[in-house]
């Protein structure tokens, strides 16, 4: 992979990687760091990564780095705020479907959230998602199903908005 090919990949996938990272992390600086790390790893491994599979490579690196970052954030949050009480999801703050979904999505497990994001945002097949997240195709499918059911349940509790 030469610099031209690499730049083409940057143009093609950096926005999608950033969107995935933002959906997981919420902090723009951290999301940017995730994207930069993913492309840095791709460049370092440019001679071994198949250009056809570079998208999966990028998402895999970004996902792994994201999970590490989320765990670190949770650990820090646990140490800092033990008495934090989350606002009720049934409160009047949730006035639109998008916000309700965003909140519901953040409550899913990391794996469920990412299978749904990769499926809906990137249009990946079950097999491609499995390659990225290092799980089987069947596990991808069941995680999507369970994740969507949780989202549906959350939406069901927001009856007024449906």
């Amino acid at each position: 992979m030469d610099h031209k090919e690499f730049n083409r990949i940057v143009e093609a996938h950096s926005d999608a990687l950033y969107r995935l990272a933002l959906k997981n992390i919420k902090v723009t600086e951290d999301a940017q760091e995730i994207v930069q790390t993913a492309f840095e790893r791709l460049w370092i491994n440019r001679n071994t990564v198949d250009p056809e599979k570079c998208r999966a490579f990028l998402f895999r690196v970004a996902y792994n780095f994201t999970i590490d970052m989320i765990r670190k954030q949770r650990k820090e949050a646990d140490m800092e705020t033990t008495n934090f009480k989350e606002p009720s999801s049934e409160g009047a703050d949730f006035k639109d479907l998008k916000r309700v979904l965003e909140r519901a999505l953040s409550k899913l497990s990391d794996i469920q959230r990412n299978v749904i994001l990769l499926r809906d945002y990137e249009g990946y097949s079950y097999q491609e998602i499995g390659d990225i997240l290092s799980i089987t195709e069947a596990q991808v499918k069941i995680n999507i199903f369970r994740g969507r059911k949780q989202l549906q349940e959350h939406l069901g509790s927001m009856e007024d908005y449906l």
Partner: protein
Amino acid sequence: MRNTQNNIPEEIQWQIFELLEGNLTLEESEKTLKLIQSHSAYQTFYRELSLTYLKPEPTEFPKKSILLKSPTNHLKIWRNLSLLASSAAAIALFLLNKTETPNTINQSIPNSSSKTTTQNQTQFTESLENRTIPTLVKKSNQISPKKQTPTLPSEAINTQIAKEDVNQSKPFRVIPIVDEGTEFMSPNGETNSNIASNAIEPDVQIVYTDFNGNNSEISEPSQTEFLLDIAENLRFGRLPKMKFIPRKRQNHLIPQVDMLVGTDTRFIQTTLIQ
């Protein structure tokens, strides 16, 4: 709180899910749709589940430009940097020639012992350091093993300059740290240009105080060489304060900044070392 799932068998939930995922054949889809229409709880579940499909939002990565790679690691000339750095070089030459040229040193110390000469050289070196060179040169104490060049801290460089002054009557000073065109290699075999092109963050950050006394910073990724134009900047007549700050990044090599000054070659060259 309403929970439609409790009223629906799991196999029906799966069937509706498969329909929404697009995993069913046309015939299976029609059959499932009829099933959904037959029961209000199924309809509600279908409607709510269909709302869980997210639509991609337009998102743009703001730092795309710094990810893009350049085919070469050589720099374009920066006008501002050129202005400042070449002025620095020119004034350094001016000060060296004006005050204590090698011949002047020898003439000013008639019949001096070797000890006295050494002392004067040391004083001369200190004088240089106090005036110009320390602000111009940031030199790491490491260098690529392949080059086999002696490792010199900045003080040693200046000492070397002074000794060269004594031995050779050159109208300019050469700090022979890096040969022009030399390709350095890291211990793992990565060449200078590879290292530089791998960099995402700037290799070198240059902080300087310009002639108006304003502090400024220049940084750029993957830079290895700063071309100067001394002639253009001689008119400034004094030295800006410049500081080269090599940046250390995780999994990256640290750049080393050297300065090479001569009549024909005038440039600051960064050498990446580990």
